[in-house]
Structure formats: structure tokens, C-alpha cells
């Protein structure tokens, strides 16, 4: 599925919730189904900086598509990672590079988009784009 479509899907899902508690509960649920990073890649060099809880991110190219995997000690961070992975994993590097991010705002996670947030969302997005850039040159 296209990134844009997945994002719309996520927006729709989140729009069903009436309050932040339900939203967060859903995000936490999503976190549980994340593509977990292989233990052998759970190393310091795959840590995302600026994150209060450890957050590992990894990416590999399979059949021209980027497969992201991640994990975090914190369940909310994992949920946020899930929201990103669902949209961007299994896409071509070029699609990832050109993808728009406004869906994060629309599902009510805007507060997490400050570069100084201790959850590393912004650094994570940056790192995902770096991976995409690296793989797009291959």
C-alpha cells in the first residue's frame, strides 16, 4: 500500500477515539505488534540519540524496499515507533524520502514533534530518512 494511504488509514483509526487515553492505549497496542529489531542488531550504534528510554532502529533493503525494525524500553516510545514503521516500512527508499509527515500531527501526536522532546521521535524520523537516502543510492 502507498504511504499516503496507510497514513490515511492510521488517521482514520485514531479519529475514532474520543480522548487521549484511548489514543495512547491504542498506540501502546500498536507498539506490541512492531517489527522487532533482531537481537544481534540491538547494539549501541543503532540507538537513536536524544531519547530518554533506549530506542533502537535498524533498516535493511529487501527487493528494493526498506524494512525497518525497532525496539524500545519504553512502551510509548515503541508505540510511536510503530506509527512510523507502519507507514514507512516496506516502501521504496524514494517514497520514504518524499513522504509527508503531517499525519503525525493529525493523529494528535504533534506535541511529540519538538526536536527537544526526550522521546526521540524527531531523531527517529531523521534516522529513517538517512537510511532511505543511503539505500536510494544503491
Amino acid at each position, binding site marked *: 500500500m502507498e504511504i499516503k494511504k496507510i497514513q490515511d488509514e492510521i488517521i482514520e483509526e485514531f479519529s475514532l477515539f474520543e480522548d*487521549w487515553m484511548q489514543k495512547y492505549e491504542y498506540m501502546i497496542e500498536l507498539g506490541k505488534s512492531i517489527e522487532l529489531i533482531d537481537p544481534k542488531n540491538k547494539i549501541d550504534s543503532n540507538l537513536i540519540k536524544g531519547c*530518554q528510554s533506549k530506542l533502537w532502529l535498524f533498516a535493511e533493503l529487501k527487493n528494493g524496499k526498506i524494512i525497518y525494525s525497532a525496539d524500545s524500553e519504553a*512502551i*510509548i516510545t515503541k508505540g510511536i515507533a510503530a506509527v512510523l514503521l507502519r507507514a514507512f516500512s516496506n516502501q521504496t527508499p524514494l517514497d520514504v524520502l518524499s513522504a509527508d509527515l503531517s499525519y503525525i500531527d493529525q493523529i494528535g501526536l504533534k506535541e511529540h514533534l519538538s526536536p527537544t522532546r526526550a522521546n526521540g521521535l524527531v531523531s527517529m524520523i531523521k534516522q529513517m530518512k538517512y537510511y532511505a537516502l543511503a539505500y536510494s543510492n544503491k
Partner: protein
Amino acid sequence: MDIAKIRNDFPILKRKVNGNNFIYLDNAATSQKPNLVIDSISDYYKNYNSNIHRGVHTVSQEATDAYENARIKIQKHFNVKNSYEVILTSGTTHSINLVANGFLEILNENDEIIISGLEHHSNIVPWQMMAEKNGAKIKIIPINENGELDMKVYDSILSNKTKLVFVNHVSNALGTVNPIKKIIDKAHKLGAAVLVDGAQASAHFKTDLQKLNVDFYTTSAHKLCGPTGIGMLFGKEKWLKKMPPYQGGGEMISDVTFEKTTYADLPHKFEAGTPNVCGAIAFGVALDYLNDIGFEVIENYENSLLKYATEKLKSISKLKIYGESKDKTSVISFNVKGIHAYDIGTLLDKFGIAVRTGQHCAQPVMDHFGISGTVRVSFSFYNTKEEIDKLYDSLNRVLSMLG
């Protein structure tokens, strides 16, 4: 203590966070400011802002007098013998670095310094930086399961090689009040000087520095209802005279030529450049405010809050409190089994409750307990039992979301 009246003094307590009444339980990181302090800042800039010292005009004189008067308020508050033993700095970190720089040339590789295992990074890193240069050896007083210093080890590592001992008065990570009087007396018997970091203590009780007979003591105004960017260093005259100046600049010299510069007397020798004039004045006002309420009143009230909160939190299953020293200020550091502190902090914030999560600039303390961080709730005299009830209820809801 008229808590409603006091809360009314703090405008920020009226705000909403995420639709809820704001409950500020991050007081160990920084305190909130009463109107009196905020207004003193506006008053300064609206009525008598000027650069100080050596100004012959009226406004400069007014600003200088207010600045020096702040020094005297600090002197009196901490019962310091001479006002020139009070150095105005930009905060505890600056104060400690000033002393570490001062001892750079006093110590050498035969000397030992002792640091408590409960220290804030601000009281560790400057000494590591110093020791790297002069070769002094660093020894550590470890902490026990309750988060208290192991005084037996202290006795065993203290020797006549020891030149300096550094310990905080209160641990910011755990709230432990350290037995500094004992530490000082023992150190003095062997000829070692003691620096006590009072950043975390001075919001909670009053300290008599002459009685304590401590060599150096330091705090930051922002921890005790004062503004950011200002703090103090007390140093005994004999040490301040012995130490070289830390920064070079205006004010701290008496004579400058390109060949030779002679330094000014205390306290100016250590106050290079235009000081934080307004900050110092507001620091003095903050001390006045707290003393008007009375530190005994504050201490009693905060102790009852701590007791109440500790009991409530302990009733939560799987919740473990780190630091259970008998002598504690209003800090509770905890974790809930299987749940990351970050998740708890993030969700409590949704309920309008501000707590701190992480290492609290005290990684060695975390390493001691084998954890990566804690949730820290820290109280002040403007907090209430109702707020603790709200914390308790919200925490339970958060835990059920995360569980």
C-alpha cells in the same frame, strides 16, 4: 501555614496543563517563583537598572547598594561571618567549578579527594576534570541499600592524604540528607577541607555555616524561589585568599597593564565581568520570602507531605522507592516493576502532573541500584495533600494503561 494564601503567591499554580489543573511535583529540578520575586525583577528593570560598582551616578549607586544588600541577605541567611566570603556566581555548577579550578594548583598526585557516591554530576565532573590535570586521586564513599552514605567506608578511606571531601547536603536523586556535620568534623581532624553542595538542601531548611564549620558551601537561587542564572559560593576567607581567580575580566582586578595585573580584594576577585545584578537582587527577595514564612514551618509542612505521599505510594503494588534514609527531604524516587519511568512521566503529564524521569544527573546513583532511571516526585511547601491524592489516583490509572 495558610496554604491557600501561599498558593496564591505563585501565579503559575493557576495554569492548566493538558486540560487539568497543573500539579507541579518537579521541585527538585527547579522551584516556582512567588509574585514578590517576579515583581522585584520588573521593579529593578523599570526603576533602577544600571551597571554597578564605580558608577558615580545615582541609579548606579542604587543598583550597587541593592546588589551588595543581596549579598548581605545571603550572608545573614547562612550565618556567614564576613560578607566578602559570599561570592555571587551563576549557580552551583559555576561555584563548584570555581573551587575545582582553585584547587588545581593546590593539589598534586600525592593528594586524595573524596567524593560521595550520591553526588550530582555537577559535583563529580569538575573534580574529574581537575584530577586529570593535577593527578589527585579520587576516592568514593559508596551508598547502601537505603541510599545512605556508608560512613564506615568513609572512615576507612579518609586519611591524612585526603585534602578535600565533597558531599551534597541533600541528594537530588533520592532526597537523602547526609550527615555532613560528622563528615566535616572527621575531615577536619585529618586536615582535609570540605565542600558541601547545598543546591538541594537550601529550599528545605536553613543552614548555619559557622556552626557547621564547613569550608565551602554552595547553592543556586532557582532552587529556592529565586531566578535562574544566579547562585552563591561561600568559602572561608583563608581558602578564598589562597585560591587563584577563576575568570579574568572587569571588576576582579585592581590594576591592569599588559605586563602585570593585580587582582582585587574579595569578593570581587571571583566576580569577573558584569554580574547578574537583577538576579542577585531577586535572590535576596526570595530568601526574604522564605524566611517570612519561616523555615521551621516549611520543614514541618514538607515532612508531613513526604510522609503522606510515601505511605500512599508504598501501597501501590510493584512500586519500589529508592532511598529510604530516615533523614530525607521531600523527594520520592521510584520505579514500578516492568514499566519504564519515561512511560509513567509521559502519561502523568497528560493528567497535568509534572514529575521528572531519568537519571537526575546522578548516573552513579542509578548504576548503584542497577537501574537506568527513576520517576522522581519532589514537593515544595506550596504543594498539598490533595495534589498527592491526585497523583495517587492518576498514577493508578497510568499503571493500568501500561500494565
